[in-house]
C-alpha cells in the first residue's frame, strides 16, 4: 500500500492563484477577470503584476462571462474567477450561448465549491455546478483534489483550446499530489491498487478515499482508488479496467448525487459493464452553515461513510 504523505495542508484556490501568476508571466495572452472576489480567488498576485490584463468587473457576473467570451475574439485566453455558484447557476445561459455554443476559449474558474465553503451556508454552497457544466456540449469539466493538482490543472487548461470549467475549494486540505506530476486532461490517476472494490473520487474527497482505504485495509479489504480530476471527458477506459477487476464501485464527491461524478460513472457502467455501485454524495438537499468538517460528517461525505459504502457494495457483489 502506498503511504500518501500530506506535504502540508493548503487550499486548492491558492494553487489556482499561483498557477495563474505563472501563466501570466509566460504568455501575454493570458487575461483574468474577477467579480469582486479577487482575494478569495487568490488572484491578487496576478492583478498586481499585470494590471493591464486584469479586469475587475464588479458584482456583475453575467457581464464578466460576456466580456471573457469577447476577449477570446482577438486571441486572449481569459480566466474568470468567482465562487462556484456565481460561476455557474448565476450565469448559466451566458455560459451556454456565449461560451459553450460559441465554443470560446474561456476558462471558468470556480472557487468555494461544495459544502466545505462552510459558514456562509447554502446560498453559497454550490452542489449542482458539475451537473450544470457537464451537460453543456463543448465544455470540459475539471475538479482537482489538492493544491498541487489544482496548480497543475490550471496550467494544463491554459494549453487546452476550448471552454473549461475548473472547480476548486476554500478550506485547507491535505496536499499530497507530487508537485511535478503531469496533469493530462481526461486521464484519471490511479492512486492505489486493489482487487476488492474500486473507489472513484474527485476533489476534496480523494483524500477521504485514501483515508478510507487505510481503514479498509485493516479489515482485510483491498480497495483500488482512482482520482478522477476530469469529470468530462470521463476516462472511461481507466474506470472499466478497474471495475472489471474489482466487480464493484463506490463514487465519492462533494456534490449533489443528481448530476455529479457518480452519475457519469453510473451512465458508463450501465451501458458497458453493470456492477453494484454506491454513491457518496449529497442526497437532494441544500447545505447549511457550519465548519467544513462538521458539514462533511452531517451530509454523509466523510471517511466513515466511505468505509460503510464500500462494505455495502461488497456485500451486494
Amino acid at each position, binding site marked *: 500500500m502506498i503511504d500518501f504523505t500530506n506535504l502540508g495542508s493548503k487550499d486548492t484556490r491558492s494553487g489556482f492563484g499561483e498557477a495563474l501568476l505563472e501563466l501570466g508571466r509566460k504568455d501575454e495572452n493570458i487575461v483574468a477577470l474577477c467579480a469582486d472576489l479577487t482575494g478569495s480567488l487568490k488572484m491578487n498576485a496576478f492583478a498586481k503584476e499585470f494590471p493591464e490584463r486584469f479586469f475587475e468587473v464588479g458584482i456583475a457576473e*453575467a*457581464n464578466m462571462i*460576456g466580456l471573457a467570451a469577447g*476577449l477570446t*475574439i*482577438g486571441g486572449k485566453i481569459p480566466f474568470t474567477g468567482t465562487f462556484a455558484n456565481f460561476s455557474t447557476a448565476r450565469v448559466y445561459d*451566458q455560459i451556454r*450561448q*456565449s461560451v459553450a455554443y*460559441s465554443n470560446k476559449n474561456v476558462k471558468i474558474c470556480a472557487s468555494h465549491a461544495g459544502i466545505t465553503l462552510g459558514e456562509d451556508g447554502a446560498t453559497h454552497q454550490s452542489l449542482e455546478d458539475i451537473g450544470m457544466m457537464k451537460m453543456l456540449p463543448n465544455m470540459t469539466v475539471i475538479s482537482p483534489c489538492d493544491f498541487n493538482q489544482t496548480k497543475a490543472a490550471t496550467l494544463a487548461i491554459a494549453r487546452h483550446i476550448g471552454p473549461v470549467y475548473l472547480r476548486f475549494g476554500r478550506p485547507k486540505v491535505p496536499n499530497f499530489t507530487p508537485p511535478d506530476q503531469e496533469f493530462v486532461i481526461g486521464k484519471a490517476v490511479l492512486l492505489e491498487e486493489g482487487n476488492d472494490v474500486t473507489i472513484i473520487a474527485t476533489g476534496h474527497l480523494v483524500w477521504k478515499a485514501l483515508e478510507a482505504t487505510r481503514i479498509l485495509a485493516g479489515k482485510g479489504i483491498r480497495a483500488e482508488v482512482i482520482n478522477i480530476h476530469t469529470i468530462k471527458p470521463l476516462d472511461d477506459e481507466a474506470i472499466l479496467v478497474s471495475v472489471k477487476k474489482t466487480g464493484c464501485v463506490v463514487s465519492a464527491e462533494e456534490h449533489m448525487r443528481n448530476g455529479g461524478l457518480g452519475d457519469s460513472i453510473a451512465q458508463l457502467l450501465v451501458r458497458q459493464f453493470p456492477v453494484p455501485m454506491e454513491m457518496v454524495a449529497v442526497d437532494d438537499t441544500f447545505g447549511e452553515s457550519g465548519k467544513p468538517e462538521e458539514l462533511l460528517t452531517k451530509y454523509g461525505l466523510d471517511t466513515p461513510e466511505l468505509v460503510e459504502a464500500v462494505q455495502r457494495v461488497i456485500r451486494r457483489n
Partner: protein
Amino acid sequence: MVSSTDLTKIASQVRRDIIRMVNGASSGHPGGSLGATDFLVALYFAVMKPDPNKFSLDGTDEDIFFLSNGHISPAWYSVLARYGYFQPAELETFRKLDSRLQGHPSVMDGTPGVRMASGSLGQGLSVALGAAIAKKLNGDTRTVYCLVGDGELQEGQNWEALMYGAAKGVDNIIATVDFNQKQIDGPLEEVLSLGDLRAKLESFGWLVLEMNGHDMAEILDQLTFAKQQLNQGRPVIIIMHTIMGFGVDFMHDNHEWHGVPPNDEEAERALAQLEETMGDY
C-alpha cells in the same frame, strides 16, 4: 465611396431576401429585420468594409460587428451574402436542416461573418466590449460595432455592460440601439417602458447620438461622426429610430410581424413593393 442611392438599392434587395427567406422557411422574424436593413447595409458596404475573403474569428486589424438581437438574422445573413461572405443562393437554406444559417446566428456551423452566437437576448454588448478590450490589448486600432434591440434592453445584463463600458473607458466601440419601440407582446411602452432612454444612457456615461435608421445619408453622417468621437475615454451609443416592418406597407410599424412569416400570397404582396436590384437568389 458607395453612394446613398446605391446603398438604398442594395437595401431593397436585402428586404426582398428577408421576405423570401422567412416565407421559404415558414418561420423567422421579418419585422425587426426589415427595420434594421438600412443600417446593416450602410455599416458593411460603406463604413466597416471588411474583406469578406479574409474572414477570421479574431477579426484582427479590421472593424468587427456583433449582432446581439440575433432574431433579425435574415437581415444580417442577407447583408453578409450580398457583401460577399457567401453565395446568396445559400440564403435559401435559412432555418432548414443542415444549414449554416441557423434561426439565430451560430458559430459552430462556421457561418462566415459570424463570430458569436446570439439570440438569447442581452448578451451581445458584453461580448462586444470584451472584443473591444482585446483590440486595445493587441494595439489594434479598429472599431467594434454592436447592434442591440430596444426590447432587449429590458435584460439586466445590458446595464451591467453599459456600466462597465463607461466606468472602464472602453472607447473603441460604437453600439447602436434599434429603437423601433415594438416587441413581440406589443409596444415597448406597454410591455415595459425603458423610460427616458437617452437620459439613462447618458447617465451611465456613454456619449449618446441619435439618427433616423431609414435615411441613408443620415446614417452615414452619424456613423462618421460617431467614429470621430472614439478614443476619447468614453464609449459611443446611437439611438437609431427605426420602424418595424419598414418597406412593406402591411408590416409597417406593426408588432404583429415581429416573429410571423408571410404566407405565399402575403410574400407576393410584399415583394411587389420591393425592387429587385441585385437579382433574387
